């Protein structure tokens, strides 16, 4: 299935996400929906924004974005399966398909060498695109002389995501009063979690269950015999997992080499289910983690609220832009209870995939935006975007997707005793 179609389907699913969940059938029909955290940015998921209530103008945007598409963060993700294929080839243990896969994996590995964890050209484009649309949807926000503060973690792919984003804003309005930073003090805004639930992460029996779950979903026999004529000395399960990693990340470059074809849609769905469950248990609204898991994103939420209040008071602040990682975005969606999905609770590992999707929460370049509007009387309303799509939070409103800022603040301060 073409990339474009995948994006359309992802968009269609996300657009109706308030009610529908992604089904096994949908994923099987388009296996790219099981790319998980390696899914290239599927946005914008909504091209036309809902008009603001009469008399309201946008004046401030608070944003948190994940770095864009990247190469794997560890070279062994490429080199380990390549070495297995290489040595099998040397002893004549590869099928013709196996030889062809070796050739392709080598191309993918060579492309990645010396680029561990770095932003790909596709990743640069994703951020440029998001910035471009942010500017064009909310032009009134980015007027000459208004202040933009961009912060990132100190990781190069994140810094470069910020660079690409801000360079586009600069092109759109050279007169912005913009500063970019990646200091240690930035981490208070871009990369901080509340770690009170540490017992859950260490001791809960669910982590043992997850291992078994993953093990039962990893069925390498068909794949391995399609690639190898002699599997002696090869750990089939770990080889399958390694190839799955290569397959996924190959979508994030412009190399144009794929090994999608070596997996069946069912295999991809199963392997993704295990990854998805792991991310859900660690960062999603899993009830096993209790309130501590749900409150992980609280430091980030507080930063959004504090800076919004400052921006409202100041009047000349256009945007706070934060660049970070999936491991901070997902907890914030959970803590914000952003969209139906981030309120999807289950303790059944088999059920997680139908409640919560990692790639909806945090594909490459995923982002959360709070867009603030004000009217002449100074009333402030806000809407929330996930992957540039309007989503809800569990707060009463009579003008969805817009919420009264005071109601939003009251809700969160009540929920988390802020």
């Amino acid at each position, binding site marked *: 299935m073409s990339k474009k179609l995948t994006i359309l389907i992802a968009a269609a699913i996300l657009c109706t996400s308030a009610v529908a969940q992604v089904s096994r059938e949908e994923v099987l029909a388009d296996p790219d929906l099981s790319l998980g955290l390696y899914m290239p940015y599927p946005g914008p998921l909504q091209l036309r924004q809902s008009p603001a209530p009469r008399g309201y103008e946008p004046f401030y945007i608070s944003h948190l974005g994940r770095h864009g598409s990247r190469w794997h963060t560890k070279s062994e993700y490429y080199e380990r399966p390549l070495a297995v294929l290489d040595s099998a080839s040397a002893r004549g243990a590869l099928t013709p398909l196996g030889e062809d896969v070796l050739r392709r994996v080598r191309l993918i590995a060579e492309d990645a060498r010396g680029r561990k964890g770095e932003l790909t050209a596709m990743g640069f484009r994703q951020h440029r695109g998001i910035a471009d649309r942010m500017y064009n949807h909310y032009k009134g926000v980015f007027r000459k002389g208004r202040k933009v503060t961009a912060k990132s973690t100190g990781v*190069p792919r994140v810094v470069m995501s910020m660079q690409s984003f801000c360079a586009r804003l*600069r092109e759109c309005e*050279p007169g912005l009063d913009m*500063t*970019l*930073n990646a200091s240690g003090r930035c981490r208070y805004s871009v990369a901080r979690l509340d770690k009170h639930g540490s017992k859950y992460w260490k001791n809960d029996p669910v982590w043992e269950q997850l291992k078994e779950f993953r093990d039962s979903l990893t069925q390498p026999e068909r794949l391995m015999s399609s690639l190898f004529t002699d599997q002696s000395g090869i750990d089939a399960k770990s080889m399958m997992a390694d190839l799955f990693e290569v397959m996924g990340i190959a979508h994030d470059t412009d190399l144009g080499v794929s090994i999608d074809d070596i997996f069946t849609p069912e295999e991809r769905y199963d392997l993704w289910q295990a990854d998805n469950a792991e991310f859900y248990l660690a960062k999603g609204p899993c009830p096993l983690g209790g309130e501590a898991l749900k409150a992980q994103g609280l430091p980030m939420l507080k930063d959004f609220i504090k800076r919004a209040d400052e921006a409202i008071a100041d009047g000349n602040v256009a945007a706070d832009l934060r660049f970070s990682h999936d491991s901070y975005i997902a907890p914030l969606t959970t803590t914000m209870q952003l969209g139906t999905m981030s309120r999807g609770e289950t303790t059944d590992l088999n059920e997680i995939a139908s409640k919560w999707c990692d790639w909806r929460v945090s594909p490459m370049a995923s982002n959360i935006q709070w867009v603030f509007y004000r009217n002449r009387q100074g009333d402030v309303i806000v809407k929330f975007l996930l992957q540039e799509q309007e989503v809800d939070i569990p707060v009463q409103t009579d003008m969805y997707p817009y919420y009264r800022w005071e109601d939003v603040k009251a809700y969160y301060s009540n929920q988390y005793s802020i």
Partner: protein
Amino acid sequence: MPIMRINHSILTALLLCMTLCLSAQTSREEIYADLRKSGGLMLEYPGPQSVQTPAPKGYKPFYISHFGRHGSRWHFDKHCYTDPLETLKQAQEQGVITPLGEDLMRRLEIIWDDAKDRDGELTAKGYRQHQGIAERMYETFPEVFKGDARVTAISTDVPRVMVSMLAFTDRLKQLNPRIRLEENVSQRDRPYVSTHTKASLEYEQSDSVRRAFHEFFEAHIQPDRLVHSLFSSEEFISSFDGKSFMRHLYETASIIQDTELDFDIYDVFTKEELFDLFQISNYDYYTTKGSDPAGGRTLLETGKSLLKYTIDCADEAIAGGDLAASLRFSHDSHLCPLATVMQLDPCRGIETDPDKYYTVYANYKVSPMAGNLQVIFFRNRGGDVICKILLNENEVGIPVQTDMYPYYRWSDVRAYYMEQYDDFKDLGI
């Protein structure tokens, strides 16, 4: 351009004089006159000190090769702040602190409050330094950046360096939003932003080099007067390492200029002490990243991969591509070797007496915060290419013949380096 009509011998004499002025020896008095210079590598960027010599008639700038150090930063070793502060606090608790000691302690607390959680990071001043350099580059050589000029920028993966690059390129984009910026931080570019010859590392860490440095260090750090001015008990004074205390305090004294703080702590030192402390770090750089003859070719060639990139990119730009500028962002420990391998006038002095190293080499002249080296390329209608070299935005000479200083025929410069470093190909890059 009357200068073009002057005959060659007069011109040569003139050039010699200019070259001497530029590589003028550093003196004690120079540092006494501006104590911030005693900070050596921590000197805040002084900015251009002279006006640019107009290019010979008919020549227009078309390409710039740049290599810059990150701007002003906080110390990456927090002990520079916390150790002296801790010692002062203990003395206060024990009632053995002098009024000057208490006053110093209060100032160190303010400094630490500013520096806390910011180990090694770019300060606001560092950010502005890069904006300023970019702006002057743009305004001095506007022809280079016109239209949709293509600019590449690479850096090491250290946040203060990446943010320096962002500050620089964001300002360029602000001045001309159409600039096509290709900015990246990649392990693949590492050989072009950092020096890493095995030979130079081995030399730097060799016993003889380390031992000699240690001796020089011991001889030039005399904390007696200082500690007696701060503490009132001999017993207390003998309870901590005075040399380490003094060294850390000097580091803190030197870095204040790089922040927004508007006071200093130079009053607790004598200017002779500061000069001696400057000599220590300057000794280190001359002997491991400068032209110390003891280091021979090893030392001279440390920056070779960096120079190779300069030449390769210039070749590309001259060949008629659309490359307008190649920007690199890095550290003092790489800028200095690049200046050395290029044999810039201020970086090729030969001196064998360690107590006189400072007369031929001053690290703050090569690599203050945001220190930078720029090669500006000019072309005439006939396609002749000339260049000039700027060190911290001041024109400098290199040991290549020219009749139009500070401009050199690029073919002469290129040939000189290729001949000097004929084993460029051994770099494997």
